[in-house]
């Protein structure tokens, strides 16, 4: 975890009161607010000019989707960490932004101390996994498993049965990863999960992070495949 004085944060939110209050709170806590932006286009410009370490990104922007902003921010600076902040009721938008490469997701009703902790974790490159995000990721793996081999049963897909061979690009959760994600979604902390499963907290965190990385790689591969199919470079 880097010291806060080197932690440069860009706050992106279309609501000025929220934006300024969060920026003030971050500065009080010792972070450097690299800039603020009220929409996606401005966020991309300010990020290019100020090169922050973490972008605190509201999903409800007037000009582009959170996934779009995340993708473009990371295309310009792959080392950037994007932390999604959203009001509830935007589950698909949150999932899209996460698979587009965001590092974490917090609801806006989270306490400021949680927000600060999340910014620090994101800066350190750790996925910020709330129970809500775990629920979304679990759901997404189930959707991928159900959509790819209808009727043949997801459990036998890996053995390459008589029908279509399993799509190697389709990510799957290991049993352990499923177990860990379910516990995160039910509100257990990493140390609690580690104690329950007799693992180290570090291992628990690696399992959780892997589930997200696999989805992000899959998403990137899908985009590349789509681009090739459309004849784009």
């Amino acid at each position, binding site marked *: 975890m880097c010291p806060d004085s080197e932690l440069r944060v860009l706050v992106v939110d279309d609501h000025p009161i929220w934006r300024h209050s969060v920026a003030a709170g971050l500065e009080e806590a010792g972070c450097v607010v690299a800039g603020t932006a009220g929409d996606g286009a401005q966020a991309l410009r300010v990020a290019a000019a100020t090169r922050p370490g973490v972008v605190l990104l509201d999903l409800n922007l007037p000009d582009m989707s959170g996934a779009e902003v995340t993708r473009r921010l990371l295309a310009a600076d792959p080392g950037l960490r994007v932390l999604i902040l959203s009001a509830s009721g935007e589950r698909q938008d949150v*999932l899209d932004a996460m698979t587009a490469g965001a590092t974490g997701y917090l609801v806006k009703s989270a*306490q400021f101390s949680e927000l600060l902790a999340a910014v620090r974790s994101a800066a350190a490159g750790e996925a910020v996994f709330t129970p809500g995000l775990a629920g*979304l990721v679990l759901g997404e793996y189930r959707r991928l498993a159900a959509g790819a081999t209808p009727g043949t049963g997801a459990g036998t897909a890996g053995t390459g049965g008589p029908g279509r061979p399993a799509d190697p690009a389709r990510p799957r959760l290991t049993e352990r990863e499923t177990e860990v994600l379910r516990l995160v*979604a039910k*509100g257990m902390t990493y140390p609690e999960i580690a104690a329950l499963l007799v693992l180290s907290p570090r291992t628990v965190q690696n399992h959780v992070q892997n589930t997200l990385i696999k989805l992000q790689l899959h998403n990137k591969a899908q985009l590349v495949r789509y681009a090739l199919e459309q004849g784009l470079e």
Partner: protein
Amino acid sequence: MAEQMWRVVAVFRVLALAYAAVLITRDHGNYAHPAAGWLALAVMAVWSVITIAAYSRPRGRQTWLICADVAVAAGLVLSTRLIEPASQISAGAPTIPSFWAVSSVLACAVAGGPIGGLGGASVIIAADIAERQALPQATLSNIVLVLIAGGVGGYIVQLGLRAEAAADRAARLEASIAERERIARGIHDSVLQVLALVATRGRELGGEAAELARLAGEQESALRSLVSGAAVPPPEGGQLDLAGLLEPLGGSRVTVSCPAGAVLLADAPATALAAAAGEALDNVRRHAGGDAQAWVLVEDDGTAVTVSVRDNGLGFTDGRLAEAEAAGRLGVAQSIKGRLRDVGGTACLRSSPGQGTEVELRVPRL
């Protein structure tokens, strides 16, 4: 729609008047009273001007005027008997007004639907039969045509008006939904965020501010479920979105986690799961201790839908089940189990001291 129909009636009346004029001009040499033939044509022309002018405005479409219209047409049909020689009439010669009489039937159809149209048609047909005192083939065909004009014409007008009313309702509904969404977006962008902010910062300040923060947080989640509830589409084909039912249960003490997409279930199991989860959360509030947090996880693995409700409250051992029963806790567990059994599902309860309680509700997909 109604305006266009009245215009059609006016156009028909003018064309039919022209046709009647052609017939009278051609046949007046054979009339018993040629002058009366011209007089009848003049009456038709004057009456056409009067009705077209009156029917062009909604206020002119009075029932008495439409009845008078039918009476004038029937009178002209009957006047044929005085003008033409009887031999021609029974041979099936056209009546003096000919098709002009049908324009009054059309007026009845537009004003009164199929009933009005058929009513007007019967009057004209009765006049026709009375005038001829016979039923030659040509007259029979004309009778059928007049009935079709009155009945089918009226029916089509009615259908058209209903379709127009339905389209109007749909447009109004769409406008009101769009307006509601616009308001929801506005609330989402301003009020909700400020309430969330007050809740967040107030909680950190502590003391009295924390109490205000709690209130702001409660109002935020209430308002949020109200606005997002307005955006939830109505159930499709008897299916309900379980995620949509459970999300409003979330708040400062309760986190609800769902898949990104809708979790569609038939009405009964979806309602049973939501009600059971609500009961489990009530139970957490009452028994798990003041600081207890709860998490609701919705999973859909294609073969079953599972809702887990976990809290980090006091928990209890199996040995304390009797005690729990005395405290009313087991009663709730039995009620939850009953709800699930009714829809072919299961509920299981796990708890250990200091580790909280977990209720797992499961309904298989058929």
